[in-house]
């Protein structure tokens, strides 16, 4: 029998442990993924922008919190403008200009990046966890569980998040955590439906039946087969959810529901509007945070687009 002539090239025959094999597999899988991802121009642009902003957010740790308060503003910090000519347009001292109180817009944007991104990530993690859990359970268990879970999902799906946000902010107060909760708890239905659809399709594959034939319990089947095959979809969806969460936070903050004690891009735009930035021509004050939001959301969208491209041809591949 000439079976050792496998259609791929030879690998050195060494004894490997199960764990080594698992890690080797992960390395190979990641290398393959990266090679594919690199080929996507959209994906690379998005990734670069993302890394840049994450870097910016990290650097916000180094900002001295006292420098953000209005009392820290001095004549030197706002030079060459004076207190009378605030807000100050971009100059050598304040590359992005200042706001109406003389605080450097650049510092504010950096500080705001941290909060905006954290809110975005956290809210989308909540979305992902709830959405994935509900989606997988509904898809895998089927029948009554499916019906119950899906009707619950529908219920949350149709809740208008803006009025809800206003009400909750009025009741629970305006802070970051309420914001994160609102965004997280109203966004998960979309993810849940997506994950359920993918679970239903994965469930039909024979390898799921084989796993049961081998003796796997439900949780073993889900963790070994359903989850790994649903993960790519969840991941790609989460990337987009982060973008949506950041936008949502900005919108809520802009409407005045944000946490007034924190600087986020949304609160910056809100403050700028309240101060009449447009009428006084302080374009830099509006542009900086707005452009940042646009760029970050764009970056996530591009990455999500590239991921989608990778996931779909994968399924079509064999």
């Amino acid at each position, binding site marked *: 029998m000439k079976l050792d002539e496998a259609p791929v090239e030879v690998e050195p025959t060494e004894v490997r442990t199960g764990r080594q094999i*698992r890690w080797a597999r992960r390395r190979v899988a990641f290398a393959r993924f990266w090679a594919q991802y690199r080929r996507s121009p959209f994906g690379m642009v998005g990734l670069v922008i993302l890394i840049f902003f994450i870097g910016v957010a990290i650097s916000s740790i180094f900002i001295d919190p006292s420098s953000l308060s209005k009392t820290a503003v001095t004549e030197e910090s706002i030079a060459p403008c004076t207190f009378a000519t605030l807000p100050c347009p971009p100059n050598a001292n304040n590359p992005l200009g200042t706001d109406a109180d003389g605080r450097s817009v650049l510092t504010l944007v950096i500080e705001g990046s941290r909060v905006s991104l954290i809110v975005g990530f956290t809210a989308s993690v909540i979305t992902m966890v709830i959405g994935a859990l509900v989606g997988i359970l509904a898809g895998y268990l089927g029948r009554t569980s499916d019906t119950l879970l899906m009707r619950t999902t529908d219920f949350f799906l149709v809740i208008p998040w803006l009025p809800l946000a206003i009400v909750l902010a009025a009741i629970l107060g305006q802070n970051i955590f309420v914001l994160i909760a609102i965004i997280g708890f109203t966004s998960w239905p979309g993810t849940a439906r997506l994950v359920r659809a993918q679970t239903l399709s994965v469930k039909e*594959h024979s390898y799921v039946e084989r796993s049961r034939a081998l003796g*796997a319990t439900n949780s073993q089947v889900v963790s070994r087969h359903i989850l790994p095959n649903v993960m790519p979809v969840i991941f790609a969806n989460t990337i987009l959810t982060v973008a949506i969460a950041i936008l949502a936070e900005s919108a809520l903050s802009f409407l005045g529901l944000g946490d007034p004690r924190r600087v986020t891009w949304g609160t910056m735009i809100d403050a700028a509007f309240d101060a009449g930035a447009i009428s006084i021509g302080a374009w830099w004050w509006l542009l900086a945070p707005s452009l940042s939001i646009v760029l970050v959301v764009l970056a996530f969208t591009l990455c999500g687009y590239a991921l989608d491209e990778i996931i779909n041809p994968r399924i079509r591949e064999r």
Partner: protein
Amino acid sequence: MSRAEVTAPPPPANERETVIEVRDLRVTFQGRVGLIEGLRGKKGTQSRAVDGVSFRLRRGEVVALAGESGCGKTTTARAIMGLQPVDGGEILFEGDPLPRDLKPYRRKVQMVFQDPTGTLNPRQTIYEIIAEGLRIHGIDRGPNGEPEEQLVAKALSRAGLRPPDRFFLRYPHELSGGQRQRVVIAGALVLEPEVIVADEPVSNLDASVRGEILQLMMKLREDLGLTIIIVTHDLGLAWTVADRVAIMYLGRIVEIGPAEDVLLRPEHPYTKALLDVVPEAGGLERPILTGEPPDPTRIPEGCRFHPRCPVVESGRAAELGIEARCRTEDLALREMEPAHEAACYEAFLRRDGAAPD
């Protein structure tokens, strides 16, 4: 071309112990009704996929469960595996009914599926696919303390994939169809089962590759003392590998016995018809059954084969005076010659000497 050594004939069937016994198995599929109709009391169409199947599987034998699609053979196999809920009858393993928790049972009875490509998770390496069985059952050491890698390598070798470690990091799509089916077999072997249930194990493979996989299965039966049930629509395959053949029609076994007896001296008209249509040189002049394959939602009264039966159609049943019974009285298997049973009124008459052959 390789040829398996012709094995010494196993001890006579009735002398070996029974590993699996199926008694009056029934599986009914319920059709769905809309909400409103359901509230009005309307029931969905019932499909009696398995309608009273009984047989014994003896240790070390290869039994072929044969028939066309819709006859219930796959459902029976899946019921034996515990993958299909059962609506009546029992399945006994080594004399005891199947327990509620099937996990220990699964170590003894394993399945080989029809489509090797779909059955393997494309994201898992061959190693992980084989090791899955061990991990599900929490087996991290073999009986002599062998580590997991050795057990996986042993299973791969037994299935003919050598050297085994060359396959560890491969993915299913990198292998050919025949190799994939060997992986499926290895995955079943790693648990060291006693019984293998194979559902159309070679029909999705290229013709020239089938023989090897069948050879492998026969060798495993010899080396490991496995008992094998093969579900197939191909009587040629049954001729090649089976000790006994059971022909199924519309959820019942209509004939069962040693392969030579059933395939060379068939008693039931349906078996005869199936054998007649196996293509071979000589043209298509043989009688071909009319009508479409049977419908398990509308099982005929009396002998379920009577609407298509050549004996009834040709008038011979009327001549012999059995037509009324064929049309109205359901019947069970009866022994024709030792170990060879069939369920046919004409065959009964023949056995009793009341009708010429």
